[in-house]
C-alpha cells in the first residue's frame, strides 16, 4: 500500500478524522489489515461491505471501543497511537469519545432511565453541565428528532425507531464534532427504518461530520459524500456515490453490488 487510498482529499483543508495504518487483531485473526482514512469536517462517509469485513470494528476503533493493534487515530487534533502508555491513552480516549458521538445497532439506551434522563445523563455527569441546561438542550433535541411527547417514557415503551432516535439525541446532546453510526437501522423493522434515516439525513444536511456503517444503500446514494467498500480488512474501493453505484472501478465492488441489489 504505497499510496494509501482514502487520503486523496488531503489538500482541501485539515481533516477532522485522520486514520493511519490501522491494524486490528482478535487473537490471531487479522480483521483490519492496515487502512488509512481522512474525513473532512462536514463530510459524510458511508462504509459498506460484506459482513465480517471489519466495518464495525473499524468504526469502533475510532473511539477506542476496540483498541487498535497498530496505527494512529486522530480526531479533531487529539492523536492516539496504538499501544502507547495506558495513562496518557486513557485521557486521550475520553477526549475523543466526547468529540465523537456514537449510535449503536442495538440502541443501547439505559433501560432504567426515561428518554430525557438518557439524554441528559452524559452532559451532566461527564461535562458537568447544569441539570437545567441539559434538560433544555435535551428537550430541544427531542423536538428535533420528533419525540417531544415521549420525554418521560422508559425505553421499553418505545418502538425501535423511537429508541434509535432517542439514542441519536443522546449522542448529540454531548455536542460532538463527529458522529459514528454503527449499523443504526439493522435492528429495525423495515417500516421503522425510514424515520431514523430521515433524522440522519437532516443531521447530514446540517453539516455534521458523519461516519456511517450501514446496509442502507439509499442513504449511501443520496446523502453521502464518499462511499467506501470494505472487504477482507481493507478498502476495496472509495468513490463518490454517483461513481460508486453507477460505474465502480473494482471488480470486487461490482460483485458486491450485484449481490445485494
Amino acid at each position, binding site marked *: 500500500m504505497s499510496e494509501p487510498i482514502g487520503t486523496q482529499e488531503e489538500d482541501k483543508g485539515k481533516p477532522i478524522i485522520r486514520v493511519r495504518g490501522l491494524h486490528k487483531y482478535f487473537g490471531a485473526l487479522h480483521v483490519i489489515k492496515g487502512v488509512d482514512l481522512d474525513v473532512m469536517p462536514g463530510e459524510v462517509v458511508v462504509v459498506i461491505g460484506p459482513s465480517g469485513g471489519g466495518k464495525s470494528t473499524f468504526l469502533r476503533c475510532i*473511539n477506542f*471501543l476496540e483498541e487498535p493493534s497498530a496505527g494512529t487515530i486522530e480526531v479533531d487534533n487529539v492523536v492516539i497511537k496504538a499501544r502507547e502508555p495506558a495513562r496518557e491513552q486513557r485521557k486521550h480516549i*475520553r477526549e475523543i*469519545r*466526547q468529540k*465523537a*458521538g*456514537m449510535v*449503536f445497532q*442495538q440502541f*443501547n*439506551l*439505559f*433501560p*432504567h*432511565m426515561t428518554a430525557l434522563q438518557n439524554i441528559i*445523563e*452524559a452532559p451532566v*455527569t*461527564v*461535562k458537568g453541565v447544569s441539570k437545567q441546561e441539559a434538560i433544555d438542550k435535551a428537550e430541544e433535541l427531542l423536538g428535533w428528532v420528533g419525540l417531544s411527547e415521549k420525554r418521560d417514557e*422508559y*425505553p*421499553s*415503551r418505545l418502538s425501535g425507531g423511537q429508541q434509535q432516535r432517542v*439514542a441519536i439525541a*443522546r*449522542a448529540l446532546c*454531548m455536542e460532538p464534532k463527529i458522529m459514528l453510526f454503527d449499523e443504526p437501522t439493522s435492528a429495525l423493522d423495515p417500516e421503522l427504518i425510514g424515520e431514523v434515516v430521515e433524522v440522519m439525513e437532516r443531521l447530514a444536511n446540517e453539516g455534521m461530520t458523519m461516519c456511517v456503517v450501514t446496509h442502507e444503500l439509499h442513504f449511501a446514494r443520496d446523502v453521502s459524500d464518499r462511499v467506501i467498500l470494505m472487504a477482507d480488512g481493507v478498502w476495496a474501493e472509495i468513490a463518490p456515490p454517483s461513481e460508486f453505484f453507477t460505474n465502480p472501478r473494482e471488480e470486487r465492488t461490482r460483485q458486491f453490488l450485484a449481490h445485494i441489489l
Partner: protein
Amino acid sequence: MEQFKDSSASTLPKQVRLLLILLVITAVVSLLYVILNLLGGPLQLPTVSQVHSLDLAPNGSLAAVGAEDGLVHLWIVPAEIRADVTRDFDVSAEEPWPGGTLAGPGGAVLAVGFADDGQTLLAVTRQGLVRAWNVADYAVTQEFNLGAEPLADVALAGNRQVLAYLDDAGALHVWDVVAEQEIRSIPPSDNARGVIALNSDGTLLAAGDGTSAEIWNVETGELLQSLQPYCGDGASTTAEACEEAGQDWLGHEKQVTSLAFSPDSQLLATGSADTTVVFWDLQTGEASWSSVGHWDDVTALTFSEDGEMVLSGGRDFKTRDLRVEGGRSTAIFEGHLATVNGTAYGPREGTIATVSDDGTLRIWETGNQYTVHLEWSRLGLQPLWGTVIVIWMFVSGILALVILWGLWRLHLWAHLVAMALFLIGPVLVLGLPLLEVLTYPLSLGLKLQIAWPLLVLLGWYILLLVVLTREQVANFYQAPHDASLSQQITVSQRTLRMRFGIYSVAVWFALFVILFSILRRFNLDISFMGSWLGFIMQGSFITFYVSALSIVLATFLALLGALGRLSKSPIANAGSGFYISLIRGTPLLVQIYIWYLGLPRLDIVLDPRVAGILALGVNYGAYMTEIFRAGIQAVSRGQREAAQALGMTGGQTFRRIILPQAFRIVIPPIGNEFIAMMKDSSLVSVMAVQELTWRANKVGRQYFRGMETFIIAALFYWILTVIFQLLQGRLEEYMARGERR
C-alpha cells in the same frame, strides 16, 4: 323429581340433572338431620361428655364416673391389670348395666360415691335428684329430691351418710342422706363461692370463697376458719407489698377451684386458678406447704388413705402426685386430652385412676407414671363440634336449596357459590373434628366407629364437588349456549381462574387444619403461650433489625467482593477470593463463636448485637458476592459501551449505568438471602442477643415449656418472612419500572 318434568329439563345435560338430584338429597338430608337433632333423635353424632366426678369401689372392682350427659358411667375393673395392655372401650357395651342412667333431662351427674361397704352407689344430679343403687343387682334402693335446682357443686362425705350442695345463690346446704332431710343451711357469702368439700365423717364443710376457703362446723353452723391469703411477715396486706418486704405471699392469688380434706381432717388442700395447691393446717389456719407445677386451674384434688399424698388434676390435662409434706410432686401423669376432673388412688396398690373431659377413664401405674397402662374410653366429638356441625348442616341445607334454585334458573353465581360451599365448608367444619377423632390414640376400627358419619358426609361433599367441576357442568353454567363465542371464552377463562382460586384457598385451609390439629396433639399450654407471647414477640423486632442491618453490611461487602472478583487487579481479585474462600469454608455457627470469643481477646468489647450483625453480615456478604458478580455480568455489554462512548469514566459507568441495572437483577436473590438470614439470625442467640430464639429458649428452659415457646418463635419467624415477602414484591415492582410495558 317432579319439578324437572318441565320443558327446559329436557335440554339439561345428564350430568347437570345428576347434580340437581344430588343437591335435592343434600338439602333434604341436611335439614332432616337438623330437625332430628333438635328432637334428640337417632342421627346424633357421638359426643364426648364432660365429666364431673370419679369414685372407685372400695374393693377396686368398679369405677363410677358422673358425667354431664346425665349418665353414671360404670366400668368393671378387671381383676388383673396387665402393664402392657391398653384396653379400648367397647362401644357395643357402652353401658355395662342397664340402670346406668339417672332420670331427668339435663340431669348432669355432679357427684358419685360408693358407700364404705361397697354395696351402694350414690349419685347426685344438678337438678337436685339423689339416687342410690345396690351394686349387686343395680336396683334402685333410694331416691329423693333435694328440692333445689340447679346445683353449682355437690360434695359427699367420706362415709356417704352426709351430702352438701352449693345452690346457685351461693348458699350452702347439708343433708343427711339416710334421713333424707336438711340438717344445716348456711346463707350466701359476699364473695362468689365456687366449690365445696366435706370431710370423711361429714362434720366439717369447706367452701372455696373467692381466693379464700371457709371451714364450717356442720353440727353448730359455726365458721371455724377463714383461710385467707396472707403475707409471711403478717403485716403486708397485698402481694406486691409482701414481695417488697422480701416475704412469701401465702395462699391463693386467684379463685379457689378445688378442695379436699385429709382423711384425719387435720389438713385442707386447696387448688386454685393461680395453678398452685396449698395445704392448710386447720388447727392454726396457716398454710403449711404449697405446691407449684400445674400450668392452669387445679380442678381435682384427692388425698391418699394415709393422708401423706395428694393427687391433683388440672385444666392443663395433667395429673400430679404430690407429697403433702413439702408439697413436692413425685410424679406427673401426662396423656389426657382435656381437663382432668376426677382423680383417685386405686383400684390396686401402686395404681391411680383419672377421668377427664376427653371421655376417658385411665388407670396408671404410679411407678411408671409416663405410660398409660389401662384405659377405658368413651370418645366422640367434643360437644362444641356437635353444635358446629348442626349449624353447618342447617346452613348447607338452606344453601343447597338456594343453589338448586340458582342452578335451575341457570344463574352463574349459583355454580360458583356451590363450589365454594362444598370446598371450604367441609374442610373447616368437618376437617377439624375429623382430625380430632382420627388422631385419638385408639385403634382404627374404633376411630371409624366414631367418625363414620363425618366420613360419609365428607365423601358426599366430594362427590358433589366432582360433579360440580365436571367440564360439561362447568361449561354449561359458566358459558351459556346462547352467548357469543368470545363471551363463552371470556367466561370460561374467568371460571378457570376462580376455580383455581377457590381450590387454592381450600388447600391452604386444609393444610392449616392439619397443622393446627397436629399442634393440638402436642398438648400445648395455651395460657402459658399467651402470657409469654409479648415477651417473645419483642424478640422479633430485634431479629428484624439485626437481620436488616446485617443484610446492609452484607450487601456492601458483597459489592466490594464482586468488584474484586471482576477486577483485573490481582490484589483486589486475590483479596476477594481469600475472603470468599475463608467465609464459605467455615460454618456460620463456628464463625459466630469466633467473633464472640475472639473480639474480647483483641480488647474489642462490642455490644452482642453489633457483634452479631458483624458475624452475619460478613458471612452473608461472602455468599452474596457471587450473586452480585452474576448481576453485574448480566448487564449487557452494550450498556457499558454506550456509556463509555458518551465519555463516561469507568467509575461513572459503574455507578450510574451498571449498578442500578445489576441491583434490579439481584433484588430477588437478595430477598431470598434476607429471608434465609432472618432465620439464620437465630444462631446469634448463642451470643446472648435477645432475639426470638434466645427468648424462646430462655423462657422454655425456665418453665420446661420449650415446645410452646419455640412454636411461638416459629410463628413470628413465619410472620416476619411473610411480611418481608410482601415488601419484596413491592420493591421488585418499583425496581422494574423501566421494564413495564
